[in-house]
């Protein structure tokens, strides 16, 4: 029964099933190949056409709400933002260290920035509308000393931490965001404050941020200790040399 005999007319005269069947075709094999080609086709299509990807995001959102976002945290449960007790500390190698209550943070002049978000694990969310404080406004307020070369970002979610150079921190796309797509940051997205640095992978953008410290020395962040690149430029790091 190994060889299919295509297109032989069926002999309907047999009454017993012990007779060899009139024909058989590799329909099972076609189902296998069809499944594989469907998968590869979808992979190619979704990798090329962002329009299709976005349409699909809407479908998968019904299954898994979140608008294409995947939520990562290193501690469970995630930190809870309490506006009464929250403080934002900005200090280290600066002339004017400050510690602000949530009300004072809210009053700080905020700016809007729209950018794409890329995660190192393979997903992206396009055109995210962020709103928050600009790094250059922070610099103007705390006045870093000449010895300050790095900015360390600490989180309510201990021991999460990351660090960028002053130059990286001051990139014009960056924003210390308290608002995402017109709404205050949710707990999952790092309320009340998260760093947004679109030219780098998301793990650099510390969530539940409660402290900025200007430092003289370089230190590795949470994921960088675990093998990820410190200079996490999208498409130019974590395996690809710039």
């Amino acid at each position, binding site marked *: *029964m190994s060889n299919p005999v295509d297109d032989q007319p069926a002999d309907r005269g047999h009454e017993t099933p012990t007779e060899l069947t009139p024909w058989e075709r590799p329909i099972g094999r076609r*189902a296998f190949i069809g499944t594989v080609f*469907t*998968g590869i086709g979808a992979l190619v299509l979704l990798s090329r056409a962002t329009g299709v990807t976005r349409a699909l995001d809407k479908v998968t959102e019904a*299954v898994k709400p979140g608008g294409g976002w*995947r*939520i990562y945290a290193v501690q469970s*449960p995630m930190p809870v933002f309490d506006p009464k007790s929250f403080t934002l500390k900005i200090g280290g190698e600066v002339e004017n260290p400050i510690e602000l209550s949530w009300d004072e943070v809210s009053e700080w002049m905020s700016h809007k920035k729209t950018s794409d978000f890329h995660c190192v*694990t393979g997903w992206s969310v396009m055109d995210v509308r962020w709103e928050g404080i600009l790094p250059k406004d922070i610099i103007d307020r705390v006045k870093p000393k000449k010895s300050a070369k790095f900015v360390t970002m600490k989180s309510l979610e201990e021991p999460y931490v990351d660090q960028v150079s002053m130059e990286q921190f001051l990139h014009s796309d960056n924003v210390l965001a308290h608002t995402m797509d017109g709404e205050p940051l949710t707990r999952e997205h790092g309320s009340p404050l998260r760093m947004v640095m679109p030219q780098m992978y998301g793990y650099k953008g510390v969530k539940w941020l409660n402290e900025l410290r200007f430092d003289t020395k370089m230190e590795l962040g949470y994921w960088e200790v675990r093998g990820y690149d410190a200079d996490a430029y999208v498409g130019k790091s974590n395996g690809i040399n710039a």
Partner: protein
Amino acid sequence: MASTPDTAGAPVASLPARLARFTRTERVLHWMVVITFTIMFGTGLALYFPVFAKLMSRPLAKEIHLWAAIAMGVAMVLVPLLGNLRSVLRSAHEVQYLDEDDVTWLKAGPVAQLGTVAPAPQGRFNAGQKLNTAMLSGGMFIMYLTGFLLWYGERNTEWRMMGSVPVHDLFTIFLTGLVAGHIYLAVIHPTTRAALRGMTFGDVDREFAEHHHAKWVAELDAQRVGVGVGAGAGAGERDGDREHDGATDT
């Protein structure tokens, strides 16, 4: 049109009550796939849904997920090689081909397919099982492909494709649907759950087989006639844990 088996005149009393359906190698392979699939499904949920992520740390879930994938691949190679390779190849061959009766069976629709007697005589695998196996295999291939791209994309971002994550997700849903149907039919559905014995003890009740796999029973009986019914351990004799070693080969 499909014919029906004529067993009215058969000496039922002398026939074995159970027919050997799967060799020990096939069953070990099946359950290795079940275990590793379940581990990947569980850790995949933990990686996918924040609500499950609270049960297990993500790095640990990811580590287990990847090792389970490797274990499944190793099992799929080693179990047949160390066991009865011929029986696995025979099954792999059988599920690829559908005959005219299989097409009749497919066209009969789910009510008839899930009834007491199959709508057309079927071999050791019915048409649904053949297509299920084919699509599961194809789906697993895609899972391995996209899984590899996700894993390797972390090491070399040139391999990051926008489609890897959504295709891995979509095929998870696809495979989960197939497996859920498979489990329902094997464990719960009254007219089909007798088949579960074939994958645990290796044999199935003759009456169930006559109803759902008439052509296979006829093949076994033809072999029994060929070797003589009185020859003792016939093709379909129940033999506990002993390896059947292609006893039902045609």
